[in-house]
């Protein structure tokens, strides 16, 4: 191939990518048309592409729309790269946005690092205190506050005893790279003590290790609890398969895991969580409150969902109190 | 100067492909002379050089240099007493460094290397005079990276570097085989000048019978790990060598 041709091809590819890139980011930003008297500019710093994070973003935007707040949204996604999320935050600071909405812990931490003046709202952060984002949930004490996705774990774990009081050993598979996961495993162990359960936790660092991890504990457990863990969520189908074949009941921290095959979940909706954050944004933008005055929240509402097929596979009684008032999925 | 005693060496031992190169081989190399070692492919001449230098370990036997038994010394320890010029012009130099830097490195052979600066102004004159002796114009290229030099220039540099610290024994491993005839001649002449000037004991493996005769004082021909000719070079003619060679080749074909 002649060198001049190769260069032409490379230039064309580059231009195509750049053009499609501009178009794409223009589309997903949900930018309101530029009008006179545009009130607020909000920068969304999302860590990665992920259904839960996407839902948290959509809920946020909808909450503001429903509240009739006039916003221009600048959406940026760091594709999992922390230095990029830092650069995104710094870019928002330079642009003097009125508020930064950070989705996921590293994005929130980067945003906090980038500014101590501009209000930063977070969601999809499991433990805002341990992550250094707020001093305490009740008094955030800075320019950062938000909605934590900490699950109502105690209620969820107690469902095991509701299903069958003889259940004792609970398995948990988690991704050692996700700090949120470690935190959840520790919390689970604390609650387990109170509930008369024992946690058997196995960590993985790669999605390929998950089937073996399940196999390694399947004979020792009476039930499995799936925390909110991005890696496990991606592999939930195979985890559910193994559990259901072995007749082991499973509880998921959130609904999408039940859709993937787990038995039941009494969990949060990231969309609703995003809406909570959106409401907090309204307070800051419209009511002029400062983040330090707004306590950080946990998920306000929970929904119980169960998987019809799994229920039947495990031979359980659909009239059991655990499933009362719950939505059925996966029919 | 160099004594090889009862040398045994095989390759691929205990397999179907075992090759016995030396079986109880003996050799004495005299001081201050250049001994040429020639022979057909597979006769063991390169292996012999590698055994002396330490690149290959012996199976059995002793190698004694200047009265000291170096058989169990590792290659880099032996290197302090030896000098070696390889067949490939790239093996004796550091291509990304300049001539000056290469010479500075060679100059430190035998000393301990520290965090002091390598290139010292006080050595410049010495290096320049060494390069001038080569008569190749390299003294004007002190700061040229060696990778830009021709094969012949690099071999000449390798030669100086190998001989610089007056080694007990200099090993020339077919060091002009990769050069064109003209350059090869230049390098051989420079080699002779160097050896004469400093009286360095030399073992020269060569593929070129003419050069071997011309530039050495003693010629040894090997075949299948045995010495089949060992005479002062002036007593041998090229024709005589060629005849023996052909006879040996014929033997092989028949065998």
């Amino acid at each position, binding site marked *: 191939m002649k060198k001049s041709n190769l260069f032409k091809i490379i230039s064309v590819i*580059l231009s195509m990518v750049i053009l499609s890139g501009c178009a794409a980011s223009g589309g997903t930003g949900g930018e309101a048309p530029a009008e006179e008297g545009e009130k607020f500019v909000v920068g969304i710093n999302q860590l990665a592409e992920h259904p839960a994070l996407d839902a948290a973003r959509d809920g946020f935007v909808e909450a503001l729309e429903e509240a009739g707040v006039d916003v221009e949204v600048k959406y940026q996604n760091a594709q999992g790269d922390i230095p990029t999320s830092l650069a995104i935050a710094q*870019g928002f600071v330079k642009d003097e946005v009125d508020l930064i909405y950070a989705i996921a812990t590293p994005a929130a*931490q980067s945003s906090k690092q980038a500014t101590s003046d501009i209000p930063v709202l977070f969601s999809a952060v499991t433990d805002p205190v341990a992550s250094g984002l707020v001093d305490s949930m009740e008094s955030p004490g800075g320019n950062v506050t938000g909605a934590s996705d900490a699950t109502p774990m105690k209620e969820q774990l107690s469902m095991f005893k509701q299903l069958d009081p003889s259940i004792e050993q609970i398995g948990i598979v988690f991704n050692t790279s996700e*700090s949120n996961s470690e935190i959840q495993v520790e919390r689970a162990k604390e609650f387990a003590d109170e509930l008369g359960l024992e946690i058997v936790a196995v960590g993985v660092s790669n999605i390929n290790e998950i089937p073996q991890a399940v196999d390694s504990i399947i004979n020792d457990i009476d039930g499995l609890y799936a925390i909110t863990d991005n890696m496990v969520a991606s592999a939930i189908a195979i985890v559910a398969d193994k559990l259901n074949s072995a007749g082991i009941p499973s509880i998921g921290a959130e609904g999408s895991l039940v859709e993937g095959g787990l038995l039941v979940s009494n969990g949060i909706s990231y969309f609703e969580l995003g809406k909570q954050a959106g409401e907090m944004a309204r307070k800051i933008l419209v009511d002029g409150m400062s983040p330090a005055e707004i306590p950080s929240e946990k998920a306000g509402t929970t929904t119980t969902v169960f998987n019809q097929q799994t229920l039947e596979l495990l031979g359980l009684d659909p009239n059991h109190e655990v499933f009362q008032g719950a939505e059925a999925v996966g029919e | 100067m160099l004594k090889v005693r009862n040398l045994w060496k095989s390759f691929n031992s205990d397999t179907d492909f075992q090759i016995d190169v030396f079986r109880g081989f003996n050799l004495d190399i005299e001081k201050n002379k250049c001994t040429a070692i020639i022979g057909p492919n597979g006769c063991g001449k390169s292996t012999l050089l590698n055994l002396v230098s330490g690149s290959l370990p012996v199976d059995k036997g002793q190698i004694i240099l200047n009265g000291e038994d170096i058989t169990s010394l590792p290659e880099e320890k032996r290197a302090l007493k030896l000098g070696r010029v390889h067949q490939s012009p790239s093996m004796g130099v550091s*291509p990304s460094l300049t001539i000056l830097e290469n010479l*500075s490195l060679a100059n430190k052979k035998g000393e301990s290397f520290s965090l*002091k600066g390598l*290139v010292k102004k006080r050595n410049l004159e010495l290096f320049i005079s060494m390069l001038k002796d080569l008569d190749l114009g390299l003294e004007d290229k002190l700061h040229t990276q060696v990778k830009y030099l021709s094969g012949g220039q690099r071999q000449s540099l390798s030669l100086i570097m190998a001989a610089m610290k007056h080694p007990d024994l200099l090993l020339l491993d077919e060091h002009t085989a990769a050069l064109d005839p003209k350059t090869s001649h230049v390098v051989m002449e420079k080699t002779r000048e160097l050896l004469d000037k400093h009286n360095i004991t030399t073992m020269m493996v060569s593929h070129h019978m003419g050069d071997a005769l011309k530039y050495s004082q003693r010629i040894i021909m090997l075949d299948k790990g045995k010495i089949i000719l060992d005479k002062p070079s002036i007593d041998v003619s090229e024709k005589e060598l060629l005849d023996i060679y052909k006879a040996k080749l014929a033997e092989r074909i028949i065998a």
Partner: protein
Amino acid sequence: MNALILTSLEQGLIFAVLAMGVTITYKILDIADLSVEGTFPLGAFVFAKFAMAGFSPAISSIFAFGYGAVAGLITALLFVKLRIRPLLAGILTMTMLYSFNLRLNGKANIPLFSYDSLFSDISAIVLMVAVVVGIKILMDLFLKTEIGYLLIATGDNEALVRSLGENSNKYKIIGLMLANGLVALSGSLMAQYQGFVDITMGASIIVVALASIIIGETVSKSSSFLSITTRAIIGAVSYKLIGGIAIDLGLSPTDLRAISAIIVIVFISYNNFSSPFIKSIKKQGGRARVKSKKPLEEL
């Protein structure tokens, strides 16, 4: 645009330390050392450990360098003593470091907001320029010492090193220790810059390092007055600048990775084709000659 350029410069300078480190293994010693994916976060986690224990940021950063050097020693010993191939040795060290990093503080993510960092009292750009220039000068000086030259010779031609009576393994060990020390230092600087430590910090860091080195190589390729360290610095800063421009242009970040790869391809092709480009012009002259029917002697 200014602030984004500033950010890119600052991050670029932090990665310049990484690039200078990887230059030692990749360019000078010609060893593909993948352990950097573990050593970079190692520096961050070590910094966190010592900072939280009450040590000053400067001391904590030095500790980071030290632990990185030890990690480099492990990789070196794996392939020098145990004869494990360098590529595999690096991967093994990286794998071991993953668990080690998690164990250091027991957490995968550690906020550092309430601790002093080197950036607390000085502006980031000033500090980073000082740090990078300082490291560059030290490295340039080192490469002019006797040991430094042996390091270069080891990467060039191990036989030569041996012929000088030296053990080339010793210099591979020195090189790997230095390189990984610098990589860990870079990791500790990044942790201080972003305000927290996260176990995912090392992912794809080798791409950043190699891209920086390759871009640096392209800059006046044949000009030897630009030292190897300067090229690493230029490469890292350019890499981050290009990334920063991409963000500023509003490019969908999904494309950022593809663009990084394309940038590297463009630079490599430019590197490879620029000489034949000139040669092809000469060739056209040659073709004209051959077309003529004049006898060879006249040519």
